[in-house]
């Protein structure tokens, strides 16, 4: 697992980054963020397992929960924008109002 973990993680991270940079829809940008977080967790879990480090696995579990909470907050923000009839694109959020 170890030699491939870094390569797979890097490829996933780059594709998530591309989703954040290239796509305008907020939902797809959020998907890209989730992929980036998962990609960062893969080597952490692999190394923690190799070194039999419970602290690493516990940290990965906490990061997973925080990422899920972040996804929920992001989705609720997108839903709020949709309620206010704003287009859920990043172009609609170029300026803060008030």
């Amino acid at each position, binding site marked *: 697992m170890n030699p491939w973990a870094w390569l797979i993680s890097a490829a996933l991270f780059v594709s998530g980054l591309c*989703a954040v940079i290239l796509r305008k829809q907020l939902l797809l940008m959020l998907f890209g963020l989730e992929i980036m977080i998962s990609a960062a967790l893969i080597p952490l*879990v692999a190394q923690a397992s190799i070194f039999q480090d419970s602290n690493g696995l516990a940290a990965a579990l*906490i990061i997973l929960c925080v990422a899920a909470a972040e996804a929920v907050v992001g989705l609720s*923000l997108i839903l709020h924008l949709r*309620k206010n009839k704003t287009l859920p694109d990043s172009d609609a959020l170029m300026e803060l109002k008030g």
Partner: protein
Amino acid sequence: MAGWMTLIAGGLAVFFSVLMLFQKSLYAAAMCLLCVMLQVALLFSLAGSPLLGLMQMVIYAGAVMVLVVVVIMAFPKPTGSLWGSFLLPRPVAALLLAGFLVELFLIFHGGAGSLSTAAVVPNNLAVGSVLFGAYSPATEAATLLMFLAGLALVGKRKGA
């Protein structure tokens, strides 16, 4: 055998994450994300942490994807097909299906032990004792954060 499974799972995860970039339909993008998350859960299990793989599956495939589908349903109805241009060329689709089937075969053929390549899987009890021992403030903070995130989804009352 676990090395092959890692390669297949990693390849499928990368393929679906790249495929997500080119989707016009939000449903299709959400399904691509679901496939990526399931493959990442398998990678966690292969790396030696089945507990984390299970959590990844429960949280993302079970909880976050439901919210994603609800949010997509709130969007305007797409003008074209619901799945947009999700149709893959048949050889590619057959290759993906073969990849999934090989994964399933390797899992069931090798038994539960094939999911772990680490010499010794750290004891889940040790992870639990760390979570509720040295890391207990962080665990409590994550719990509170998830509770507050849940509250963010609750609509504001009129006149409040």
